[in-house]
């Protein structure tokens, strides 16, 4: 099945520097369009619009002091939505901290994402039926988790795939290499998805590695590596789908794990605390904006008669409503109770921590919240 992507060679047998493409920048078909129903294609488009609109609103919430530091995703919707859409229901995603769009596809409510970045721990309390790991802030630290989780699934015969996200900078960390190496050795059903957005804060991709591509790092661990145009949601879907199917297939004549390098760009800052104008040129940003994944898919869907003005307008309205509702819900959530700080570190509160909590509660009772909230 997965051998069919790409007309002549298997997607996993391409040169590392030959990215898989389906749509060009104008939405013209230049590769094999994945076999998706019209509504699934519209779903990808809708999720990308939702992620983009959410992102803009989140940045402005931060600017208005209604949210803390936030890592924007604009520009990376094609990679996030295309890949997450390729998972089946029982599969898992293991994110870093920027995959709000992918998490959305996997069923994580936008309200959760907002709460987390509003400094509210409830945002990390992922609903039981949502197969998404908690946010991992330290770079690449989630990579071995994805290997271990996939390994567990294999040992239990559950046949689920695990999609692990990380950035170009993460490929410099030891955890990346250890996690991918283990996946190769134990042949785990893991898809390592590198969002190569060209910049690790201010450090360009070329400063991370002398390798010509990140995909080729797979070679050293004996697994498959493939590069994909990360601004092309359909190419990303195809490649990820092939990797997911291969991960799940114990009879595959190939290693189960795959390293996907999705070449893309973050249009905005690393986080709202960052000023990218210090380290990169406007020309470069403009060049990448012409590759924007959203108009490209829209053009294709319009040309196929799947989208028209009316449907696009409907989607716009839907997107605005959903984001507005999520913000309303997150902002009307009660502030977390201070006792939450003590409750969750252990299954059972140890006596010393309980003593500290009681001391804390007595102090709060005597002096009120203002005794903590001063400058």
């Amino acid at each position, binding site marked *: 099945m997965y051998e069919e992507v790409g007309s002549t060679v298997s997607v996993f047998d391409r040169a590392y520097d030959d990215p898989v493409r389906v749509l060009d920048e104008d939405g013209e078909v230049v590769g094999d369009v994945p076999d998706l129903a019209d509504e699934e294609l519209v779903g990808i488009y809708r999720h990308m619009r939702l992620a983009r609109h959410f992102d803009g609103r989140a940045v402005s919430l931060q600017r208005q002091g209604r949210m803390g530091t936030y890592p924007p995703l604009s520009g990376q919707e094609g990679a996030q939505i295309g890949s997450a859409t390729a998972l089946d229901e029982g599969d898992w995603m293991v994110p870093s901290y920027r995959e709000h769009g992918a998490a959305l596809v996997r069923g994580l409510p936008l309200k959760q994402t907002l709460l987390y970045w509003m400094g509210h721990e409830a945002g990390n309390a992922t609903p039981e039926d949502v197969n998404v790991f908690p946010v991992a802030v330290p770079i690449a630290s989630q990579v071995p988790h994805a290997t271990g989780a996939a390994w567990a699934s294999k040992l239990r015969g559950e046949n689920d795939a695990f999609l692990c996200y990380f950035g170009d900078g993460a490929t*410099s960390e030891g955890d990346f290499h250890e996690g991918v190496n283990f996946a190769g050795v134990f042949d785990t059903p893991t898809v390592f998805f590198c969002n190569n957005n060209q910049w690790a804060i201010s*450090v360009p991709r070329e400063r991370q590695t002398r390798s010509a591509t990140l995909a080729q790092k797979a070679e050293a661990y004996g697994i498959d590596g493939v590069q994909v145009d990360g601004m092309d949601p359909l190419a990303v879907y195809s490649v990820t789908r092939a990797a997911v199917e291969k991960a799940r297939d114990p009879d595959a004549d190939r290693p189960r794990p795959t390293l996907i390098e999705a070449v893309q760009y973050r249009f905005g800052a690393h986080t709202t605390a960052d000023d990218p104008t210090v380290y990169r040129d406007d020309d470069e940003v403009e060049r990448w904006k012409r590759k924007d994944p959203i108009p490209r898919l829209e053009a294709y869907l319009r040309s196929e008669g799947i989208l028209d003005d009316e449907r696009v307008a409907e989607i716009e309205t839907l997107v605005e409503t959903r984001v507005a509702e999520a913000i309303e819900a997150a902002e009307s959530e009660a502030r977390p109770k201070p006792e939450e700080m003590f409750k969750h570190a252990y299954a059972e509160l140890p006596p010393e921590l309980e003593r500290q909590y009681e001391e804390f509660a007595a102090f709060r009772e005597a002096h009120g919240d203002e005794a903590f909230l001063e400058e």
Partner: protein
Amino acid sequence: MSETQNLTVVQAVRDGLYTEMREDDDVLVMGQDVGKNGGVFRATEGLFDEFGGDRVVDTPLAESGIVGCAVGMAAMGLKPVPEIQFSGFMYPGFDQIVSHMARFRTRSRGRFNLPMTLRAPYGGGIRAPEHHSESKEAFYAHEAGLKVVIPSTPYDAKGLLAASIRDPDPVIFLEPKLIYRAFRDEVPEEPYTVPIGEAATRREGGDVAVFTYGAMTRPTLEAAETLAEEGIECEVVDLRTVSPLDREAIVEAFEATGRAVVVHEAPKTGGLAGEITAIIQEEALLYQEAPVKRVTGFDAPYPLYALEDYYLPSATRIEEGIREAVEF
């Protein structure tokens, strides 16, 4: 008389790096985003333009690589000043810190010195994401072979950083980012050092000794001023170096009153307050008038920012702690 500049803590760090780099070609800065970007807190601003890419080095994103390469450079006689962007991201480099940075001299019987200074912003209170707010100085103070320095004023930031860079031994230099820009101080333009291992008395008072360091120095002084209105006079001692501790200053301040409070934002169990209490027990038991009071962070994971004000010692919590020690 030397010229001075009115600088914040982070500007004084930057000035300390600039001055030491100007004085000594062996000093170099390395880390993530320290180059063109000038550091995420601007602690290396302008250094890349001044000294170039060989001495102000943007590295790949790999803390073990940063610390480990600095160990190798220092073994060959350079004086690297690696930066870890936030102390919460030290841990991939922890093996290098503990297994090598702390032990190279002892392992080689002094054949190799490691004159390196590992800088990292630490501590809470800036409404940052997870892993950006912890205070884990006790990890490093627990490790023989390292010195651990924490300035609390712009003057000390520059002088202690210079002393750390010139020190033949490896130093962990933790910068309290909450007060990076909180206030300004007159800082000499010329190079100078503040000795490592010496505490500073920030306020004199004859009723109780209060030991603290880093960002907690300010709320501690605030609490002391409030208590002065009630007639309680606090001696506030800023430790400035948490390893090695200034044992003499601790004992002297304690003996004057027989009462002590220790304030830090790090968790209570295994924190420096326990060590300071033990020093008091060992050296001055017969002077003791009250149990040593610890006002600290909790033994709970540092919360996301919606709750961080409840975690950090506030002036009122410190005030109450001091009152307890005085009224015992």
